[in-house]
């Protein structure tokens, strides 16, 4: 009887001990993943901030009346879209060190993130440029001409007539690309940037744990989910016209 009681007590304590350990581990993983998420978020935001305006510039280049520039831009876009982003990332991170003899990226985490942002910005700017171009050229010429005939200035036509129609055309394909970007940030692991996927993966390597991988997936889902809600909202706001 006493023995049974003791055993039960030991079991109970063991349970609490285990529960404590699991909760402790859960916190460790969460903290680590949050750290990774911060890096992922940094890559994401800086890439967007650079690639969006750069993409617009490339789009203008692709529509330029100056033929050599047009060809140059076409070739650039073709090469960048025709090769893997991971390959581009490797070349941009390791290339300068091998060609110049010294690494232009500092060896620390900041250097890795910077190299990633540079590679991603070039790559995504090319994809964005195609979307921008489609949006700009997709607005019928008749819209501009209708404005001209009504005596509007070029800038009035752009801001009051064509801009919103371009935005409406650009938002759906752009939201797809931006959501792809969230997931593509995981490629930064290849140059050992400690982003979200790397964070989750490291627990499998060191502790043989697989559940942090699924937990990592939840982080991505939340990130993508918020973006999806945002884009749905924008699309709905632009739904009132066709």
């Amino acid at each position, binding site marked *: 009887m006493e023995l049974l009681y003791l055993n039960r007590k030991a079991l109970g304590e063991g349970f609490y001990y285990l529960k404590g350990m699991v909760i402790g581990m859960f916190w460790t993983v969460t903290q680590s993943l949050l750290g990774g998420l911060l890096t992922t978020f940094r890559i994401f935001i800086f890439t967007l901030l650079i690639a969006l305006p750069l993409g617009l510039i490339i789009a203008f280049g692709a529509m330029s009346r100056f033929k050599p520039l047009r060809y140059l831009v076409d070739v650039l876009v073709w090469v960048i879209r025709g090769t893997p982003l991971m390959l581009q990332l490797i070349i941009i991170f390791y290339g300068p060190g091998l060609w110049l003899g010294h690494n232009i990226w500092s060896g620390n985490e900041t250097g890795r993130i910077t190299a990633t942002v540079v590679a991603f910005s070039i790559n995504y700017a090319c994809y964005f440029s195609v979307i921008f171009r489609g949006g700009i050229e997709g607005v019928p010429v008749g819209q501009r001409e209708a404005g001209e005939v*009504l005596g509007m200035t070029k800038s009035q036509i752009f801001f009051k007539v064509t801009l919103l129609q371009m935005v409406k055309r650009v938002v759906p394909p752009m939201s797809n690309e931006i959501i792809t970007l969230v997931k593509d940030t995981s490629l930064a692991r290849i140059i050992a940037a400690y982003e979200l996927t790397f964070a989750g993966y490291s627990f499998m390597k060191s502790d043989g744990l697989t559940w942090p991988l699924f937990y990592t997936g939840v982080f991505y889902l939340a990130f993508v989910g918020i973006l999806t809600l945002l884009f749905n909202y924008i699309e709905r706001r632009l739904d009132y*016209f066709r």
Partner: protein
Amino acid sequence: MAILEVKNIEKHFGSTQVLKDVSFSLEEGNALAIIGSSGSGKTTLLRCLNFLETPNQGSIAVKGETLFDASVPLKQHEKDLRKKRLHFGMVFQSFHLFPQYTALENVMLAAQLLAKERTDYKQNKKEILAEIETRGKALLDQMGLQDRMDHYPHQLSGGQQQRVAIARALALSPDILCFDEPTSALDPELTGEVLKVIRGLAEQKTTMIIVTHEMAFARDVADQIIFMDDGVIVEQGDPRQVIDNPREERTKQFLTRYTEG
């Protein structure tokens, strides 16, 4: 004196000549119909009048003021060009309404933007904008669209859209209103409502140039008609005379082809 004087207009795109020595004049308050087979240069002529194309030769004068003269090469400043454009209004075959604005907003937009250039805009902003709105509503009323003012273009039928486009072109009170086949993009049962509106404008002595394939309408409404073929004016004159008793062989052929369908 004629309100519009077009002299010796030539236009080519690359090596194809689209307009050859086109000259005509139009009296104030008159409606001019332009007929002719596909590719004869009717649209191009209207586009030249509206400065959407630049003629290679010739001149255009409105109310005695030369707006364009190819023999006097001068760099057009945007501001001058815009002012010249306002002598003409344009109604396109496929409407080209601004999709993100309601019918009323479509009609008011250009006037609102133009008003900003007035020196007294800041002081009298409220009155000026109220005036524009009153005028916009009156125009849509005139087009029979009083209950469609807040509809967006995609919520309107083709005939309604074209009537909004006419109101929009009238909003800046152009001297001459141009129509490029205003009913060609419409279902047959909707052409009537648009033609009725144009007929009403003719009765009010609006100066108009109407490119059309509606022969009966042209005969009935126009004061003057031009038949174009292959970039030249083959015949012009009184619409009844030209349509019922054409003098030129090419006009006859065109009209028989037309009446035969």
